[in-house]
């Protein structure tokens, strides 16, 4: 039974399109995150949500809009996709805000052509 799941696992799309990545956690955690791992392999936080409220937005273009319909879900919508958006996107969760141990999903590899 997967703790943190993401769909889709792979996403290939054209520049300019809009796409969404879904994330769900069944751990009962209060806090969820989105990370981006770029071509240089850096894993950087994008957003953090606690109890459906945005806590952290780390200088991410406003083309990226996270949406948390409930505590168990944090979806990432990306408008007007650009080549530089190609990366692996990881969703994660932790029991509470400031929780040090985070549980990661398997990642979504986004390729923008």
């Amino acid at each position, binding site marked *: 039974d997967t703790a943190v799941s993401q769909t889709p696992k792979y996403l290939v799309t054209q520049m300019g399109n809009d796409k969404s990545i879904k994330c769900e956690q069944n751990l009962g955690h209060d806090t969820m995150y989105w990370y981006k791992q770029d071509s240089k392999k850096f894993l950087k936080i994008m957003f953090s949500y606690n109890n459906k409220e945005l806590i952290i937005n780390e200088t991410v273009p406003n083309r990226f809009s996270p949406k948390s319909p409930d505590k168990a879900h944090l979806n990432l919508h990306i408008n007007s996709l650009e080549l530089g958006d190609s990366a692996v996107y*990881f969703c994660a969760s932790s029991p509470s805000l400031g929780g040090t*141990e985070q*549980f990661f999903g398997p*990642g979504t590899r986004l390729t923008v052509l």
Partner: protein
Amino acid sequence: DQQVKQNSPSLSVQEGRISILNCDYTNSMFDYFLWYKKYPAEGPTFLISISSIKDKNEDGRFTVFLNKSAKHLSLHIVPSQPGDSAVYFCAATGPPLVFGKGTRLSVIA
């Protein structure tokens, strides 16, 4: 501006020997440090952590050492096993979590 640095992109170790993975950080406000392990096509999984008030934490074959004055931590794996072959990420938090670039460990049978 890398606040957490893993300067060795890769490391090869013989099975049964010790693996030592190193990590340096620049932000003295970090108060908790973690190591994550990542297999291909999977997300990172938590391995071991250490609070800034400690200098050592041990969990089975894994030990993390923290030298605050040098802003350096290391992960020791002994004995190394082929199943330990993965990418290891060092991370630090204030919060949020800040990750290093990772070190790919290959344990050779």
